[in-house]
């Protein structure tokens, strides 16, 4: 293989024939799916975790806890690709609707990461001294209010570094979204390759791009972690 020629070909497509625009759009979609996915995941995961740590003596809470257990088992027990395919090809047919691939990806990544985030949140919440909840309740604050104002803000400090890692793994996992026609980083480099039927250089570049993203995010997580540890004092 002629590396120099391959690279020249790639560079021609990438720099001169708007390949970089395809790439930037892919980068945008990847980050959008991972970011919105994480945000939805945090909301869903927080709700599930809050329900799971409720005291168990009321029938209605046990009922909701069962639902949450089922949710977590369902999303953790099946491959993400399968969830994407079902949501994009099966569900719209059943419901008689259609929705854009990117939206499906955001929702599924969000729901899926919610199942994982709920476990992260739950252990974070359980790591907070139970006396904090007691003090809030003893003052007449309700369970949800104490949870939101006192317990979760403290749990977040333990949780944020782990959530950062969840975000990084979401970014990596988005590389499967082309299964449902979304055009992420991975797809954008395939399209660049398609233009010349030469994939070696584009895929090498793709790998380098992912490595750079992950390194940058890892650095950010470290910085936030250090910052949180300082504000603890």
């Amino acid at each position, binding site marked *: 293989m002629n590396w120099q020629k391959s690279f020249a070909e790639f560079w021609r497509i990438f720099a001169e024939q708007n390949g970089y625009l395809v790439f930037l759009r892919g980068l945008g979609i990847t980050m959008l799916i991972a970011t919105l996915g994480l945000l939805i995941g945090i909301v869903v995961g927080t709700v599930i975790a809050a329900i799971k740590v409720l005291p168990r003596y009321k029938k209605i809470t046990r009922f909701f806890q069962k639902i949450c257990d089922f949710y977590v088992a369902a999303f953790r027990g099946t491959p993400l690709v399968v969830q994407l395919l079902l949501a994009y090809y099966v569900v719209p047919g059943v419901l008689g609707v259609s929705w854009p691939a990117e939206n499906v990806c955001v929702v599924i990544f969000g729901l899926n990461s919610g199942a994982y985030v709920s476990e992260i949140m739950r252990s974070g919440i359980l790591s907070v001294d139970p006396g904090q909840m007691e*003090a809030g309740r003893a003052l*007449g*604050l309700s369970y949800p209010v104490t949870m939101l104002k006192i317990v979760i803000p403290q749990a977040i400090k333990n949780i944020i570094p782990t959530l950062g890692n969840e975000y990084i793994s979401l970014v990596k996992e988005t590389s499967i979204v082309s299964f449902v026609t979304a055009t992420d980083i991975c797809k954008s480099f395939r399209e660049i390759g398609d233009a010349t039927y030469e994939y070696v250089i584009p895929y090498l570049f793709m790998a380098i791009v992912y490595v750079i993203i992950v390194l940058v995010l890892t650095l950010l997580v470290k910085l936030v972690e250090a910052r949180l540890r300082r504000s603890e004092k």
Partner: protein
Amino acid sequence: MNNNNENALIVVKNLQKVFKNNNGDTVQALDGIDNVIHNGEKVVIIGPSGCGKSTFLRCLNCMEDPTGGSIFFGGEDLADMKVDINKHRENIGMVFQQFNLFNNKTVLQNIMLAPVHIRIKKAGGIFAPTAVKKQIKEEARQTAMSLLRRIGLEEKANVYPSKLSGGQKQRIAIVRALAMNPQVMLFDEPTSALDPEMVGEVLDLMKQLANEGMTMVVVTHEMGFAREVADRVIFMSEGKIVEEGKPSEFFDNPQTDRAKQFLKCVL
């Protein structure tokens, strides 16, 4: 001390508490407690470890839900699970052995949080007019500052709890409960987690409250405090009230063998 029932603040009838352990065992922590706590009364609860003192105290505001009997307070039976317990807890201050200041809030925020939240909720929650919210916050801030001034810790208003000594934390925990303007204060071994040199400052504050006429129920091992401050001493053993009476009578002339034995160990 007035013993007529109009003056009763908390009426406890045949209170039962059974704990279920994870392995299926049950522990009868309280076994038929009957008692009346009167307005302005200072009651000190003593007894050997594991006799149910904390459980009794924590049942009074349903931090532990009773498994039988009743607790009449504010015209309702708190043991009834349908009662809005939060409403009553506003009127029952509680102070813990481990202080339990909110770690994520400054001292001032610790004191203001519950009064502000609860008053804003009563004024309509998020729909309350901004001016009303502002006023509630300002009033709570002033109350909090005057409480801090009272305990000489106003310069700590914007400090986080991790920067405070144990004695400071506990005094702030006490005024945090006072900020709700409660009808009664419950103390569960408030000085047991303190270094000896800080016990005095906390007991002094509690004595002040007692002198101002606050109704107080105190679980403690500080027999000097019990003798000096209590109107009535309750001695518990194995989930029951074994003996109660004026501190002078109880300490100098205990009636039951168990009380005699206990006092021999602690005095």
